[in-house]
């Protein structure tokens, strides 16, 4: 079975990247890349009580997931989802570890509920009313590629639309110095087994031994290496160009993922 699917919509949010059209302009060189702190949207879809409890990891994931489903014209309540992240909410983790280091050891119940790796997937389901399956993955720096493989196998084997949401946020100090992710970044894509109206491209993934693509712009290359979800940049660059081509993405120490892209435009 070929691991192939149609790509219906994209969402991007990160340092100096505010949405997919703007990111596409940067990635094709039509706009200069100007690094700036990631601006995270308030997840308006969530009920007010839930909204107050959400941290940066939920905001970045829901932000790009909404952009991708909206661009794809997909019904967010119907698509299966794959959430891939190299960590959970770093700030929540820090608060809990700090509380546990004190003699009182008072852990906030809300913080504990929000500490799970699948916190963004849970809020996505609540926000959209989606009862569809949701998979939550981690492969450290290879999390985007692992999420891409899972999304494509679900699309091909289960024959249904799948939303991939790859995202990472920073840890505060002192964990930051052990895992120096500088800011939040998210990338989302909607895959369908059949060609949809407005599909951007047909993509096919294979495992390869080839070296992964680098970004020509040194600042974008630095971003690719600094935030695990930004390992998607070589693929986004190809998609932004709107032409057919091939992108090789970083994956495990023993393999990379080659993505063949056939433009639908």
């Amino acid at each position, binding site marked *: 079975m070929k691991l192939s699917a149609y790509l219906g919509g994209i969402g991007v949010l990160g340092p100096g990247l505010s949405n997919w059209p703007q990111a596409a302009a940067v990635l094709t060189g039509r706009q200069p890349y100007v690094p700036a702190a990631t601006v995270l949207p308030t997840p308006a879809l969530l009920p007010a009580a839930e909204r107050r409890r959400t941290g940066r990891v939920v905001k970045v994931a829901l932000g790009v997931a909404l952009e991708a489903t909206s661009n794809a014209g997909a019904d967010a309540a119907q698509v299966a989802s794959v959430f891939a992240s190299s960590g959970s909410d770093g700030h929540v983790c820090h608060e809990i570890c700090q509380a*546990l280091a004190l003699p009182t050891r008072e852990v906030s119940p809300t913080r504990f509920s929000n*500490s799970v790796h*699948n916190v963004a*997937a849970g809020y996505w389901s609540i926000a959209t009313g989606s009862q569809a399956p949701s998979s*939550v993955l981690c*492969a*450290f720096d290879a999390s985007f590629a692992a999420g891409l493989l899972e999304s494509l*196998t679900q699309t091909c084997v289960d024959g249904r639309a799948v939303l991939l949401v790859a995202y990472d946020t920073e840890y505060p100090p002192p964990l930051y110095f052990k895992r120096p992710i500088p800011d939040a970044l998210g990338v989302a894509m909607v895959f369908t087994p059949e060609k949809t109206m407005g599909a951007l491209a047909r993509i096919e993934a294979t495992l390869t031994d080839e070296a992964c693509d680098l970004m020509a712009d040194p600042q974008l290359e630095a971003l690719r290496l600094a935030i695990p979800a930004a390992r998607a940049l070589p693929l986004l660059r190809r998609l932004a160009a709107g032409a057919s081509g091939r992108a090789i993405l970083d994956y495990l120490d023993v393999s990379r993922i080659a993505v063949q892209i056939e433009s639908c435009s």
Partner: protein
Amino acid sequence: MTPLLLSQFTASSCIGLGVKAMLTTLIEQRSGLKPCDFETVNIDTHIGEVPGVDAQRLPAKLQIFDCRNNRLAELALQQDGFLESVQAAASRFGSRRVGVFVGTSTAGILQTELAYRARDPESGALPTSFEYGTTHNTFSVADYVRQRCRLQGPAVAHSSACASSAKVFGSAQRMIQAGLIDAALVGGTDSLCLTTLYGFHSLQLSSPAPCRPFDVARDGISIGEAAAFALLERLPGNLDAGSVLLLGVGESSDAYHMSAPHPEGLGAKRAMLAALSAASLEPGGIDYINLHGTGTPSNDRSESQAVTGIFGPSTPCSSTKGATGHTLGAAGALEAIISALSIKNGLMPGGVHTTRIDPALTALYIKENRRAPVRRVLSNSFGFGGTNCSLIFGAAG
């Protein structure tokens, strides 16, 4: 879905290292729970601790992975000839054709908890000896297992709270069906840590007593730890009649609440129906249900409704968490192995610690072991975030 063979499996929990010890404990209806004496934890609760984890050592070249969680994984991999079976599969298929899928909720977060107690008083820095990526990070246990077993196929950790290591069966099955791999090492590992012990306590979800699933006086979970693994592959031409197969996987989301299940168990129901559909089975085809059965008032109430809504009141079911504790991200894999043992040995394990079944729960909860042929078992795993996964296992013959 196309059924897959569980060509080898193993599990280690507080009721024993390896499947033989676990089966004996289940037959004798004993529990491994004890009053909490873990680390410096001061909570009135019971825990299921695996013996010998702290004394376990990792191979010298994998020392960077050293933490309680990976020690538990190592201890479990050494049971039942599992490592040898993985090596045989790797030689048969090629190490690049065997994938690794491991579920965990907290991985080795205990390392970070301990490191936060040892911060530099001046700078606040964590100790230089503390390794984040290979101990605390969610992927660390999957990475440890793949490096330990020298597997080079796709590898990933699933972290959907308490459904994590049930979900790995779905991922592995899809990747085998897509032809990306020929076999998969699937499983789950979660170990005791302060985050979960104090966290569930803060939510008032842990019981001071050993947990009593489906009891009228049930008042919460007992946290346990476990590591459980299985090797999944396509059915061979000459299938042994005693083999256990994965027949169906069903997944759903509640869309309801982060830490409470849907009151009528709608998400649970969807997952069970999806698993039955994947296995092409009617509800009557299930002989025994291994419940999620955590022992919280709300989980057992909603799960019982979901179960009777599909199966009626006469399919025997029980929770084995009274024996093992709730092993969180390892529960799906641990209970998958219990399901396999149930089929192989004609055993429906009665739920221990439960004395008076809640009359409001209409599912047929069994307190005593039943010995009868078991052809097919459904196993439920539900987690925070409203994530649900049901697995169906069956006898080959």
